[in-house]
C-alpha cells in the first residue's frame, strides 16, 4: 500500500493527561491508516478516546496532555506528487503545522452552538480561514464564501454572511462550520460527532451533505461517531475503539458481516432495529465503562466480556489479521497472523 493511496498513516499513537502529577493514559497504542477518497468511521462508547485521538493527530490538545507517536504521516497530493509530512514532532502551533490546518486538514467539531465565535459575523469567520492562507482581497474572499454557502445549501447567502452565529438555527450553524472547514479545500476532513447535537432530520441532511463532498470531490473523511446506523450509511472502513485502544479495524462489509471482537459484536447487537420479534430483547453490554485511571494490564474489555478467559488478563494483547484488511485485538484469534 503506497503513499498515493494512503492519506493519513498513524502508528502507535499514545496520549495521556497529567492530572496532579499522575499520568492517565487515554489513547493507547493506536494505529490505523486512512485511504485517500474514503470515509473512515471511528466508533466506540463515549469516553473511549475517539475524540482525543483525532485531537492528538491535529495537535489541538490542551497543555497538560502528553502526545507521543511513532509516526503520524500525512501525505499531501499536489500536482500528482506526494509531499509527506511527519506530524508527530511538529510544534503544535508552529508555522508548518499551521500551514496544514485549514489548507490540508479541515475540522468540524461537535457542538455548532459553541464552535463559532459569538461576536463576529459568520462571513468574516469563514473568510478568515481563506485570508490566513491565501493572498486575496476581502472582496474576493467574500465571493468565495458566498459560493461555499450556496454549495452547502444556506439560503439567502448574500444577507446571511453579515449575520451573527446566534441568528442561525443549529443545522444552519453546522453548515457554516462545515463551510469554515472546507473553504480552503482541504483533502482530509475530520468530523468529530458532527451531528450529535442536532435534530434527527437535520442530522440526515448534514450527513448527506458530507457524503456528497466526499463522493463528488474525492475528499477523505474521518468520521467520529457512536451511532452505528450512521456508520452503516457513511463509512467505507471502520475502526472500533474501546478504552483508548483499537479493538477492531476493517472495511464496512467485514465489520458488519463478520464482527469478530466481542465488543464489536455487542455494539452491533445493541443497535435498535425496526422489526424486532416480539420476544427479542434489545441487548445491553453488562457492566459500566471503567475509570481510565483504574485499568491495569490485559484486555480492557475483560470484565464485561462474555468470552473472557485467564489469558485475556495477562500482558499486552496483540492484534491479529482475521482476513486481509481486517484486524482484531483479541486472544481468541491467536491462530491468525499477528500484525501489531
Amino acid at each position, binding site marked *: 500500500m503506497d503513499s498515493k493511496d494512503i492519506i493519513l498513516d498513524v502508528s502507535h499513537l499514545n496520549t495521556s493527561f497529567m492530572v496532579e502529577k499522575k499520568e492517565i493514559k487515554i489513547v493507547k497504542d493506536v494505529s490505523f491508516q486512512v485511504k485517500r477518497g474514503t470515509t473512515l468511521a471511528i466508533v466506540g462508547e463515549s469516553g473511549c478516546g475517539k475524540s482525543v485521538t483525532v485531537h492528538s493527530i*491535529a495537535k*489541538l490538545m*490542551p*497543555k497538560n496532555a502528553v502526545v507521543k507517536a511513532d509516526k503520524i504521516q500525512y501525505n499531501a497530493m499536489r500536482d500528482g506528487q506526494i509531499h509527506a509530512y511527519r506530524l508527530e514532532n511538529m510544534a503544535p*502551533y508552529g508555522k508548518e*503545522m*499551521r*500551514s*496544514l*490546518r*485549514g*489548507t490540508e486538514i*479541515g*475540522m468540524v*467539531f461537535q*457542538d455548532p452552538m*459553541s*464552535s*463559532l*465565535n*459569538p*461576536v463576529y459575523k459568520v462571513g468574516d469567520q469563514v473568510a*478568515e*480561514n481563506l485570508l*490566513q*492562507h491565501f493572498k486575496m482581497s476581502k472582496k474576493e474572499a467574500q465571493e468565495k464564501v458566498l459560493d461555499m454557502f450556496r454549495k452547502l445549501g444556506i439560503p439567502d447567502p448574500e444577507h446571511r454572511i453579515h449575520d*451573527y452565529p*446566534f*441568528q442561525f438555527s443549529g443545522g444552519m450553524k453546522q453548515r457554516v*462550520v462545515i463551510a*469554515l*472547514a472546507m473553504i480552503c479545500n482541504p483533502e482530509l476532513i475530520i468530523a468529530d460527532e458532527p451531528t450529535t447535537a442536532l435534530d434527527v432530520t437535520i442530522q440526515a441532511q448534514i450527513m448527506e451533505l458530507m457524503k456528497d463532498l466526499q463522493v463528488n470531490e474525492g475528499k477523505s473523511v474521518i468520521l467520529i461517531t457512536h451511532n452505528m446506523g450512521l456508520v452503516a450509511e457513511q463509512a467505507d472502513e471502520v475502526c472500533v475503539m474501546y478504552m483508548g485502544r483499537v479493538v477492531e479495524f476493517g472495511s464496512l462489509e467485514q465489520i458488519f458481516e463478520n464482527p469478530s471482537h466481542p465488543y464489536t459484536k455487542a455494539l452491533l447487537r445493541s443497535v435498535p432495529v425496526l422489526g424486532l420479534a416480539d420476544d427479542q430483547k434489545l441487548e445491553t453490554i453488562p457492566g459500566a465503562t471503567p475509570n481510565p485511571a483504574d485499568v491495569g494490564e490485559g484486555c480492557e474489555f475483560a470484565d464485561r466480556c462474555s468470552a473472557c478467559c485467564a489469558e485475556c488478563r495477562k500482558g499486552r494483547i496483540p492484534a491479529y489479521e482475521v482476513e486481509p484488511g481486517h484486524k482484531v485485538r483479541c486472544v481468541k484469534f491467536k491462530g491468525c497472523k499477528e500484525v501489531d
Partner: protein
Amino acid sequence: MLKFTLKKLLQMIPMLLLISLLVFGALQMTGVDPISYMVSPDMAASAENLEALREQMGLNDPFFVRYFRWVGEMLRGEYGYSITTGSSIKTMLAQRLPATFELALWSLLLSTVIGVAIGIVSAIRQNGIIDYIGRFLAVIGQSIPQFFFGICMVQIFAIKMGILPTGNRMSATGEFTQAQHLILPVVTTTISMCAVLMRYTRNNMLSVMNSDYVKTARSKGLPEWKVYFKHAFRNALRPVMVVLVFRLPLLISGSVVIESVFSWPGIGITITDAVVAGDYPVIMVTTVLVAAAMLIASFLVDVLTALLDPRVRLGE
C-alpha cells in the same frame, strides 16, 4: 443601537425620581426644621422673619408639593446652604467634586489596566510567577482593610522616608507637587480594587481559552497571537465591562474612608463630616448626586457592552 440607547436612557429617569423621593422622604423623617438650611444664616436670625419665610417658601405645603419643588430646585442647581459651615453647597461641591473625580478616575484606570493585564497573563501562563503574585495580591487585597493599608503607607513613605506627603491635595509650602500628593491615595485604592478584577479576568480568560471557538480558530491555522487578540480577548473582556458597573460604587464607597486617611478634600470627607454634624441639606444633595452619577455610569457601561456584543444590541 439608537433604540437601545434611548430605551436605557428612559429607564434611568423613573429610577432617579424614586431615589430622590426616598432620600427626600427619609430626611423629612428626621424632623429637622427645613428652614434652617433653606436660607442663609443671617436671614434666619429673627423669629418673625422665619414664620413669614416659612409661609412664603411654602414649607407648610403638603409633602408632594414640597418634594416636586425640591426636585425643581435640584434640576436648576439651587442646592441650598450647609447647616454647619453656612456656605453654599454648590460652591462646596464645585471645589470638592473634582478632587474625588481625580482620585476615582486615576484609581479606576490603573486598577483596571493592572488587574486585567495580570489576570490575562495569569491565565495564559498558568502557575507562572505572575500567576502566584497575582493570587497572593488578590488575597491580601481583599483581607487587609483598605484604610489600614493606607495608614501603613503613610507611615512608611511619608513619615519614615519623607519622600511623599502625608495627605491633602496640595502643599501650602509647595514642598510636594500635586502629582506626588496623588500617589499614595491612588496606590492604596488601586491595590484593593485590583484584587477582585485580577481573579475575575483570569477565570474568564481561562474559560474562553478552553472554549470551542478558540479551538476552531486554531484549526484554521491562525497564529497564536491572533487567536488571543482577535478571538479570546473580546469574549474574555466583555464580562469585565459588566463588572465595571459595580466597581464605580465600590470606588466611591472606598473614597469615603480613604479621603479621611489622606485628608483628601473630596465628596467622601464632605459627606462624612455632614453625617457626624447632622448637616442634612449636604447629606441630601450629595446622596442624590452620587446616585445620579452611578446611574449615568451604569448607562454608559450598558452602551459600551452593547457596542462590544452584538447579541445585546440586536436583542437575543
